[in-house]
Structure formats: structure tokens, C-alpha cells
């Protein structure tokens, strides 16, 4: 095949690919009608109208660990949420127990069974490093497809964590002492593939101290 014709075919193929690959718009037209996303406002609204009312649905951590031992898949399917299909899943949980250790970063709690008062595993309530998407994803109440871009979606998580750092943790952290009885609700992360239930970190959503 003559070179000019060959190059012409190549150029046509590239042009066709490019035509079907990208499109151009004026930026102000794209932005029109889409006001800047208010992540803080969205997170506050979510906290007050979706998360807090939904806390009553949080699964008891003792019940969850029993379920996980009995039928892991059933427990994950019934109580966890996550984006995508990875092994990392998030649970909204509640529990109560006795504080066994307090330090700058976390409060260790020995769970107690509300009925039998039997000893159950320790959990760690995070009180310093509140990061990640645990609370946002554990709630199962935010649909990623409702967001025009992933940065907005991630900013919601950052703002939820900020609410926890500003309003949930300080009153608890300043008063909690070893031996206190605490009641908590929060989000936890578990790996479906490699389940570890003896060292669970709780990102708190609600914390209460019941002095002995």
C-alpha cells in the first residue's frame, strides 16, 4: 500500500478515536447550575437527619461477634456496608463496657454483655486520630452516585470526621477515667477475608460515661 494512503488511514483512525474519546465544553457552562459543593453543610445535614436517627439500628457488638463466629457471611451480609466489592466492610455498632486503659490516642474498653455480664473482647475507641471513611460508609446512607465528583464525596467523610473530633470526642476525652462504664455507638472496619475480632477500633459517633 502506498505510504500516503497508509498515513491517511492512520490519521483517519486517530481522528475517529479522538472524536469518540473527548468532548469540549465551556467551563462556565459546565459549572452553571452547579454551585460549589458545601461538604460541611452536607455532613451536618447527614449527621442530624440520617446518622443520628439511624443509630438505633446499630448492631450490638456482642451480638455481632457471636454472629460472626456462627456464620460470618450471614453477619457481613446482614450488617455491613461498603463501596465496591472489596473485603473491607464497615459496621455501625453499639456496645457498653468498662474502661481498662486511657491514653492520648484511644480508650480501651472491656465489653460487657448487657444480659449475662460476661466478659467479652476488648475494643479501642479512637479519641485522637479520626480519619478514614468508616462512619460515612458504615451508615450505608450516602450514595456515591449522588455526587458529581469523588473529591466532594471524600470531603463529606472529612467533614464527618471533623464533627466527631469537635463535638463527640472532647467532652468524653476530658472526663473518661479508668474504671468508668461507657456506652458507645460508632463505626468499625472488618476484613471479610481475614477476620480479626480481638482488636477492633471504634470510630465513635456517640459516647456516654456512666460513673460507677
Amino acid at each position, binding site marked *: 500500500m502506498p505510504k500516503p494512503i497508509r498515513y491517511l488511514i492512520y490519521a483517519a483512525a486517530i481522528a475517529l478515536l479522538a472524536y469518540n474519546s473527548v468532548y469540549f465544553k*465551556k467551563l*462556565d*457552562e459546565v459549572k452553571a447550575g452547579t454551585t460549589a459543593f458545601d461538604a460541611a453543610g452536607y455532613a451536618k445535614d447527614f449527621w442530624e437527619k440520617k446518622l443520628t436517627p439511624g443509630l438505633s439500628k446499630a448492631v450490638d457488638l456482642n451480638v455481632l461477634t457471636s454472629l460472626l463466629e456462627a456464620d460470618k457471611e450471614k453477619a457481613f451480609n446482614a450488617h455491613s456496608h461498603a463501596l465496591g466489592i472489596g473485603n473491607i466492610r464497615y459496621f455501625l455498632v453499639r456496645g457498653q463496657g468498662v474502661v481498662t486503659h486511657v491514653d492520648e490516642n484511644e480508650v480501651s474498653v472491656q465489653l460487657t454483655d448487657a444480659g449475662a455480664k460476661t466478659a467479652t473482647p476488648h475494643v479501642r475507641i479512637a479519641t485522637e486520630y479520626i480519619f478514614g471513611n468508616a462512619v460515612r460508609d458504615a451508615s450505608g446512607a450516602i450514595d*456515591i452516585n449522588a455526587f458529581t465528583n*469523588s473529591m466532594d464525596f471524600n470531603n463529606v467523610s472529612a467533614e464527618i470526621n471533623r464533627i466527631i473530633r469537635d463535638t463527640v470526642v472532647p467532652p468524653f476525652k476530658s472526663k473518661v477515667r479508668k474504671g468508668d462504664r461507657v456506652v458507645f455507638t460508632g463505626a468499625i472496619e472488618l476484613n471479610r477475608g481475614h477476620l480479626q475480632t480481638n482488636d477492633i477500633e471504634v470510630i465513635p459517633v456517640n459516647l456516654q460515661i456512666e460513673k460507677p
Partner: protein
Amino acid sequence: MSQNIPSIAGEKPAGDRLPPTADGRSVALQGRFSIARFQSLIALFLLCLALSILSDKFLTVSNLWNVMRQISVNICISVGMTLIVLTAGIDLSVGSVLALCGAITAGLLKNGIEIPTQNLYIGFTVLGAILAGGLTGSALGAFNGWAITRFSVPPFVATLAMLTVARGLTMLWTGGFPISGLGETFQFIGTGWFLAIPLPVWISIVVVALAVFLTDKTRIGRYIYAIGGNENASRLSGINVNKVKIIVYTIAGALAAVGGIMVTSRLDSAQPNAGISYELDSIAAVVIGGTSLSGGRGSILGTVQGAMIIGVLNNGLVLLNVSPFWQQVVKGLVILLAVIIDKANSKNE
């Protein structure tokens, strides 16, 4: 050199090591290759047999398709790695390149490009985003090849540098956050079915077919084996060694991008830490598949078998609830065993 010389592992040997006889067979190998050439397949069969006895979930349709989906990504990466290892090179950057290409594809698809100074928004279709991801992988692979050939940097070092660079670029591009919600059309690549077979499996079949054609039926395929067998002899015989190496690294980069797009599509999310340690799984697949790390000997189909062994092993260890720490130990020992067998085979030759 001839590509049609069966070796004891069923792989193509370096021409300068195994001169063919008139009937196209190596004298040294005649009569004793029959069992050894199937050693990977035998290992795979025994592994599957053991797992089907030890776990009732292994031989279920859903689990086997799941394994095949997971293997598909490693096959794509390992095919590129095989071409590189055949030239006596190595590519440690495939995992990071995979992550970056997946992130770029997802980022462009989700957010496009905004150029405020020109009041311009460039949006990308699924095709456009995939092409951009593929071109990124190819460019990074080409850069690896260029750095290795132009500055005589050992492949290990050059690709180790790229491993860090690509991971850093991924973090910069994503801001450290996943890019999720990429739409159903894009998700279909990683989760869809075609003719009752998962689409990722079809993609890996096409990749393997093209790679087998490249290595067996083209001039550059013969050059790849020749360079791995004896680089100086290849250069003296007129082969443009640098050009071939750059092409090989470019192909490997493009295939890492294919893997990245498949992973991103399957998860509907580009994870900044995706692909970590994928290079080890792909090297393991290549070695277990019988490709010699010193180059010049090996085959794409051997690598496919190696990838299947690694994939089945990963799946089996999870099904058997083996601790992830022990999983790494087991995989390491399997790789070591494969290298020892390879060395023994080479010695016999």
C-alpha cells in the same frame, strides 16, 4: 536460533544454548521432556485436587469464576513481565504503573480536565479515559526501556525508581483518596459477562493470544528470545537490541495499564494503594511458569499456568482460613521451589 525446540519445561530455549538438530529438536532433550514439560500443569492439577478435598467451597462455580476474574489481572501483567524476563530484564514497577493508570482513567472519566484560564472543560468518554490510561502505561513503560538502554541502568534499579515515581504520581493525582462512582458502562469491563464468560477472562484470553502470536510468529518475538539468550551475539548479528527492549517495556507498561483498568472497573473505584506487591505475583507467575530469570527461555503459556497456580494458591489459602502472614510464607516457598526446579532443569541441559 529456532523457536520450535521443545525444552524440558516445554519452553523455548535460548538459541545459543540448545542448537537444534536437523529435525528441529535438541538432541539433549529428546526422550526426557515429556513429563517435565507438563510440570506446571501437573502442579496446578494437584493443587486443585487438594483444595477441592480440603474445602467444599473451592469447586463451586461462583468461586471458580471469581478465581478466573482475579487471575485475569495477573495474567495481563505477567504476560508483559514474561516478555521482559525473556530479554533477561525485570520490571518492578508494574504494580505502581497499574495503580497510576487506573487512577488516571478513573479521574478523567469522573472529573475530566478543567482549564480555567481558557474557560475550557475537556470531558472524557469511557473510550477516551481507557485510551488515556493505556497511553500512560505505555509511556511509563517506554520511559523504563529508554532509561535502561540509554543510560545502561540495570532494569532492577530503573524500574524500582519508576515504582516509587508512579506511586507518588498516583497519590498526587488522587490526593490520597479513592476515585469512585465511575458509571455502569465502565463497570461492565470488570464485572460484565460475554457468552457466559466474565469479560476480564476474555480480555486476558485476547492478551495471551496476541502475546503468543508475537513471540511465536513475528520477527520481534525471535529477537526477544535472542536478546535474552545472548545479548552481545544478538547485537553483533544486527539486531537493534535497544529498540526491541524499549518495545518490550512499552508493551509491559501497556499491559499493566490494562490490568489497572480492569481492577478499577471491577471495584468501581481507583484506589491509590492498588497494585501493591502485584509485581511479586507476576514475577512468581513467570518463574513458576518456567521462564528463566536469566532470559532466553520460557513461554507465555507457561506463564499463564504459573498465574493460575498463584491465583488458585491465593484463593485456596483464603478458603482454608490461613493467616495472611502464613500465606506470604507459603507463596515465597513456592517461588523458591520453582526457581530451584528451574536451576536443576538448566543444569541438566
